[in-house]
């Protein structure tokens, strides 16, 4: 693992993208085939499953370090990362190891079949053969939480630099249903020829948010507008008599959404459709909350299928008759898509994404204002002659979301973050007056402030803590924040009776006294106006 640890250190020690690509490309040139294949797997989220519980690991680490468990638990939030906390408290190793990454991953996989006593012995033995970085990586591997802060795009760039194969081709090759056990570096990367090819999706084309007015995009006639939906972006792949459904996170979700099996009857072999998986009933979209009840489940009951059925709203056609259409202009892809799914019966789990007619940008601006009542997030603007890019590229596709809803609320609890945000209070709970003289919490928010603001609020929280409840601190209700969010729903799980979609801190309102913030009645009025 030494070579891999050196790569990790090199990546961790620089914030420069070029330096990171160079370090990774160097590794991809030199490392043994098995190790580079595993590295691609790890960096593309194909991590080995968790081999040990966090509870066991903490106990075994504290015992090995000769410290009481409570002391370990005190240190953990300061470090903000379990694998790192363990690596830091353990005594110096007694031995060294030259074993390869692949060997070490083999050891972590073997842990899964052991009983607790054997597992503990094996983990202690591993800790005794690894230095601090090696232990950190090993702990990450066995807790299933391995992330290296390297995007798939950056990895693909490095792989392209190391192999001389074009980046977009590589991005496509390394997608899909493979693991290091089912393929080789040669077949996955160099020839792109393996079993995964049948189910393999295409890299998603992503849009940037439109910040300036749409007039900056030129004549409206060059553009096609569609509603932007709040579901799960996905691809439906129909090849070799089978249907595969992929989420944008490159997860194969076919079994979670058995509805799509029926598409076998509706679309021919050699078809790939890009669309949005949405909860849909009686001809209308259900709130994202409803879809959420389906996301986590691998097996779906008949009752759930009846209550929260899903469909795919088809945005684009990426493959037809086995031909890759991504270089074909969007207008033509769209025409072919209409031919394919435009005339399907109402019970088909596929529907065509409707376009928004526009004679001018003003028409679209007016249509966009109606997004919220349609349960849409806004508009998507796509250039009629655009190709289907790999990843996020500026210029051809834009998301033009409606402005968020906002309320002013007061912070009542604060909690420290993890990882990069360890030691900083970043996770806050907000409340509004309920009309009886009490404050009712209604949302949490974690993002939206600058690092400097988080540092400042952290100092304030430290100096003004009222009570501690484990990692959570209660603070006096004086700090007012503007909370922005995308949607509002009724909720029986929260005392306030509401749940927000994508809440974040838009601004720290130092100018606003608590007496002037929004109230629960304001939120209820928003729910009545915008809740679906």
């Amino acid at each position: 693992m030494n070579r891999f640890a050196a790569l990790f250190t090199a990546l961790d020690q620089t914030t420069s993208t070029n330096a990171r690509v160079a370090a990774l490309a160097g590794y991809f040139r030199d490392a043994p085939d098995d190790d580079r294949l595993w590295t691609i797997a790890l960096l593309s989220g194909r991590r080995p499953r968790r081999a040990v519980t966090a509870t066991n690991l903490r106990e075994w680490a504290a015992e090995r370090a000769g410290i009481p468990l409570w002391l370990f638990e005190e240190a953990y939030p300061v470090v903000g990362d379990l694998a790192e906390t363990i690596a830091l408290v353990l005594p110096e190793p007694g031995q060294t190891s030259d074993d390869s990454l692949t060997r070490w991953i083999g050891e972590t996989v073997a842990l899964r079949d052991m009983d607790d006593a054997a597992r503990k012995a094996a983990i202690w033995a591993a800790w005794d053969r690894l230095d601090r970085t090696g232990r950190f990586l090993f702990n990450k591997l066995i807790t299933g939480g391995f992330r290296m802060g390297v995007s798939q795009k950056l990895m693909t760039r490095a792989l392209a630099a190391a192999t001389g194969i074009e980046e977009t081709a590589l991005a496509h090759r390394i997608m899909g249903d493979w693991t290091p056990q089912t393929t080789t570096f040669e077949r996955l990367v160099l020839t792109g020829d393996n079993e995964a090819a049948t189910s393999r999706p295409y890299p998603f084309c992503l849009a940037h948010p439109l910040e300036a007015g749409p007039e900056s995009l030129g004549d409206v006639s060059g553009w096609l507008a569609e509603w932007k939906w709040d579901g799960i972006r996905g691809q439906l792949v129909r090849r070799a008599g089978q249907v595969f459904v992929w989420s944008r996170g490159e997860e194969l979700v076919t079994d979670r959404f058995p509805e799509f099996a029926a598409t076998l009857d509706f679309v021919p072999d050699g078809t790939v459709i890009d669309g949005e998986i949405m909860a849909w009933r009686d001809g209308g979209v259900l709130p994202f909350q409803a879809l959420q009840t389906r996301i986590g489940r691998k097996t779906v009951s008949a009752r759930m299928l009846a209550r929260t059925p899903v469909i795919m709203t088809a945005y684009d056609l990426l493959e037809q008759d086995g031909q890759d259409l991504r270089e074909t202009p969007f207008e033509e892809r769209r025409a072919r898509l209409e031919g394919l799914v435009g005339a399907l019966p109402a019970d088909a789990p596929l529907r065509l994404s409707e376009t928004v007619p526009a004679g001018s940008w003003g028409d679209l601006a007016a249509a966009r204002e109606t997004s919220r009542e349609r349960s849409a997030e806004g508009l998507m603007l796509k250039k009629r002659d655009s190709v289907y890019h790999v990843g996020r590229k500026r210029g051809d596709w834009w998301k033009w979301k409606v402005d968020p809803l906002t309320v002013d609320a007061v912070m009542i609890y604060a909690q420290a973050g993890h990882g990069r945000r360890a030691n900083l209070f970043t996770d806050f709970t907000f409340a509004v007056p309920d009309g009886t003289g009490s404050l009712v919490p209604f949302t949490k928010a974690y993002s939206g402030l600058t690092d400097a603001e988080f540092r400042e609020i952290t100092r304030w929280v430290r100096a003004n803590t009222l009570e501690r409840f484990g990692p959570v601190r209660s603070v006096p209700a004086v700090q007012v924040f503007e909370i922005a969010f995308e949607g509002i729903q009724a909720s029986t799980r929260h005392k306030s009776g509401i749940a927000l979609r994508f809440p974040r801190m838009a601004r720290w309102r130092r100018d606003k006294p608590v007496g002037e913030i929004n109230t629960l009645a304001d939120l209820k009025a928003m729910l009545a106006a915008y809740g679906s």
Partner: protein
Amino acid sequence: MRDILTFTDRGIYCPAGDFYVDPWRPVDRALITHGHADHARPGHERYLSTAAAAPVIARRLGVTPQTVAYGERLTLGDATVSFHPAGHVPGSAQVRVEVGGQVWVVSGDYKVEADGLSEPFEPVTCHAFITECTFGLPVFNWTGQAELAAELNAWWRATADAGRVAVIGAYSLGKAQRVLASLDLSIGPVFTHGAVENMNEVLRGQGVALPPTIRVTPGQARADYARGLVIAPPSAMDGTWMRRFGPASRGYASGWMALRGVRRRRAADRGFVMSDHADWTGLNAAIAATGAERIFVTHGYTGPFRRWLESRGYDAHVVSTEYEGESLDTAATADETGERP
């Protein structure tokens, strides 16, 4: 057994000798352990420190402390006091107070490992020990001095070879000189921010041997910094001051750099685990070496550290003070350099 030191809202007070140690509000007589801003504050009537710490205190506060040598005993009222090396920064001391056979030690800030520059920490036997615990959790275990120097020089060399300037953030008193003493001067020239160079001047003036440095001044051209390493207080590294160096690699020297999250948040190219405070092992060893049964913990992870000491059989207490230790939050504490604005 009565307490010979008490904890007041002005600072740690000795009624028998009518003096304070490192007080944070103005008092008549202040014994100062070392020149860092949270320990040496302005506004007291009389100052007492080691001869080694006095020049820095004089420079920063514009006062003239009465001085004693390390180990020299002085009678103040019914108390006998003496100063003993704390190993924290050059001139730093622990203060030993003896009243009627009772011995208490105020450690100020301290570090157990010798850094080759500060007078090495000396354990002082006592009944009660007042200790910091800035890094009082078992995740803090420092890299050895030699390994640290090797890391630092490897970074400097690679940065210079890549045609960039290496800029390292380090407190101007103590850590800056430690960085300086660790450098391999065959790599290139060493530059210093004014706050650092002011401290260098004071220390050189009192006979501390430091390698040659060049003060960064407005008249210099970018080419002058070629292959250079610049030592600056962390607060200078977020500002426009950095622009003069062109493409630079940033490093930070701090005990907090032991934590990956902090390193990443700092957006530094490199973090070097260098602290002038004791690590977990150091704190425990120092406390054991005093033979004290009563321990007062002042700043840092006081809650867990007190509980840990209690579980080891000590009579341990937390006292609240206004000492800061090593700031986690370098960008936000402009006064950590000790320079008055």
